[in-house]
C-alpha cells in the first residue's frame, strides 16, 4: 500500500532527505496557564518527513508543547505563549488554530476527543472541513480506509460504541483528512491493547513513508525509540535531552526522564 497517498507538495521520500530542511522550528517557546509557567524556553526543530518522539513523565509539559504549536494556548489571560513557532517560514504563533491546520499541521489530541455522537465517517469528514480539503475529499476518505481497513467496515458505527484502539484509528484518520505535512500525536498508545498498538505503529510507518513528518508523544520508551529519527526528553517544562535514538544510551534517557542527573 502507501503509493502516492497523502503526499504533500514539498514532501520528500525518507530515503532522500539528506538536507533535512527544518519543517518546523520552535524557538525560545514558553507557555503559561495564567501566571503559571508550564514550559520553559523550548527550542527544537523537525525536518521534512522526520519523526520526533517526545518523552517525559506526566506533567513534564509535552501536551502543552503540542497545544502551543496548534495555537490552543492563545486564550487571552487564561493561557498564552511566548517565543516563536515557525512552519515553512510562517509564524504559527501568530495564527489561530484553524489557520495552523490550514497551513498543514494536524493534531491527534490526547484522549482522542472524537465527536462522540457521530459515525466514523462523519468524524473523518469533519477532518476535511477546510475548503482546500473538500476537493478530493472522497478519494482521501478511501485512502484513510485503505490505511485502516477496520474503519471501512464500520463506517456508519457511532464512535462512542467502539474500542479504544478503533477510536484512535478514527482520530488519526480524522487528522489525516486535512492532508497535513506535519502530524502531532498526543499519547499514541496510552491505554490501548498491545496488539492494537502494533497495528497503529505499522500504520504510522506507512504514513511516515508517504512523507508526513510526525511529532509523537509516547510513554512506551522502547516504541518511542524504535520509531523515531529524533528523540527529546522533557522534564518540568524544559527539554533536558535530545538527539537521535542511536546517539543516546538508555541510562542517559532514564536519567533525563526521572531527573536524576546522571
Amino acid at each position, binding site marked *: 500500500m502507501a503509493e502516492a497517498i497523502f503526499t504533500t507538495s514539498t514532501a520528500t521520500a525518507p530515503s532522500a532527505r539528506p538536507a533535512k530542511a527544518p519543517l518546523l522550528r520552535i524557538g525560545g517557546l514558553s507557555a503559561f496557564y495564567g501566571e503559571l509557567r508550564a514550559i520553559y524556553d523550548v527550542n527544537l526543530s523537525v525536518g521534512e518527513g522526520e519523526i520526533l518522539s517526545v518523552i517525559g513523565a506526566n506533567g513534564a509539559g509535552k501536551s502543552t508543547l503540542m497545544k502551543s504549536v496548534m*495555537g490552543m494556548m492563545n486564550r487571552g*489571560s*487564561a493561557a498564552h505563549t511566548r517565543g516563536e513557532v515557525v512552519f515553512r517560514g510562517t509564524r504559527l504563533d501568530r495564527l489561530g*488554530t484553524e489557520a495552523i491546520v490550514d497551513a498543514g499541521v494536524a493534531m491527534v489530541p490526547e484522549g482522542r476527543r472524537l*465527536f462522540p455522537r457521530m459515525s466514523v465517517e*462523519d468524524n473523518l469528514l*469533519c477532518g476535511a*472541513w*477546510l475548503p482546500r480539503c473538500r476537493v478530493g475529499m472522497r478519494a482521501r476518505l478511501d485512502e484513510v480506509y485503505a490505511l485502516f481497513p477496520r474503519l471501512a467496515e464500520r463506517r456508519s458505527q457511532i464512535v462512542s460504541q467502539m474500542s479504544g484502539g478503533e477510536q484512535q484509528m478514527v482520530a488519526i484518520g480524522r*487528522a489525516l483528512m486535512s492532508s497535513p505535512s506535519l502530524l502531532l500525536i498526543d499519547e499514541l498508545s496510552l491505554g490501548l491493547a498491545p496488539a492494537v498498538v502494533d497495528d497503529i505503529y505499522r500504520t504510522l510507518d506507512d504514513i511516515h513513508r508517504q512523507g508526513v513528518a510526525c511529532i509523537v508523544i509516547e510513554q512506551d520508551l522502547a516504541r518511542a525509540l524504535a520509531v523515531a529519527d529524533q528523540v527529546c526528553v522533557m522534564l518540568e517544562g524544559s527539554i533536558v535531552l535530545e538527539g537521535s535514538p542511536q546517539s543516546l544510551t538508555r541510562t542517559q534517557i532514564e536519567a533525563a526522564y526521572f531527573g536524576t542527573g546522571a
Partner: protein
Amino acid sequence: MTNEDLYYTFIDIANGLLTGSMLGGYYAMVSIGLALNFGVMRLVNLAHGDWLIVAAYIAAALATLTPLSPFWMFVPVVPLMFVVGYVLQRWFLNRVSVQAMERRGMSTNFGLMSPLLVTFGTSIVIAQALLGIFDSNARGIPNELSFAAIRLGEDLSVSVLRLIFFFVAVAILIFLHQFLHRSHIGRAIRAASDDSEIAPLMGMPTAHVYAVASGIALGIAGAAGVMIGMSRTFQPFDGPQFLLVAFGVVIIGGLGSVKGSLVGGVLLGIVQVLAGTYFGPAAQQVGGYMLILLVLAFRPKGLFSA
C-alpha cells in the same frame, strides 16, 4: 355511559389529538431555535420569544406594503432573521459567551451568567423598541385562510391554516435534520456542539460556525413568527410567553434532537388542548406545565435526549 356520551368523548379526544398535533408542529418551530442555541453554544437565549414577535411585526409591516398574500412574507422574513441571528452572534454574543468568558479567565459559573444577563437585557430592549415603534395594540396579519376549515365530520374540523403550518413545520424540521447531518457546515455545527475545543483542530472557525447556527435558529424563529402573526394576535410584550412554550418543548423533547422538538411540541399541544377541553380554558397552561413537571420528574433529560 350512553352512545351519545361515547360519541362526544371520541370527538373530544380526536379533536385534542388533531388540534394538538397541529399546534405541536408550530410549537416545535417556536422552540427549535432555543434548543439549537443551547445545544451548540450553551447559550440560553432569553430573548428568543421576543425575536419571534419581532418577526411577526416585520411580517405584518411588510404585508401592509404589498398586495401579495401574507404567505409570501416567509420569503423576506426568514433570510432577514437569519442575517440578524448571524450578525448578533458573530459580533455581539460571541464576545459575551461562556467560551469568551472562559478565555478571559472567568469561572464557568460567571460565563453562564453573562449571556443570560445579556439576552435578558436584549429581551427588554426589543419589547420596549416594539412598543415605541408600533403601539401596545394587538395586531394580526389578516389572510385569506384565517377562518377556513376542513370539516372531517359533523363535529370535527381542522383549521386549514394550522394544517398548512403543520406541514411547513415538519418540512422545515426534516430539512434542518438533513442539513445538520449531510452538509459541511451542518457537520461543523454538530462538531462544535460535541466538543468546541476540538472543532478548531479540524480547521473549523467556531465564531463563524456559531454565527451560522444562531442564524438558523433565528431564521426558523422568523418562520414561526410569521405563523404566529397569521394565526393569532400579538403584542410587543408577548415574547416571554413563547419563550415559556419553547422551554417546555425543550424540556419534554430533550435537547439536541430535531425529532425531540417535534414530538415535544406535539405532546405539549395535545395535552394543552385536551386539558382545555375537559377542564376549561384556564387549565390549558396548567395541563402543559403538569406534563413538563412529570417529564422533569421521570425523564429529566427529556424524552429524546442524546
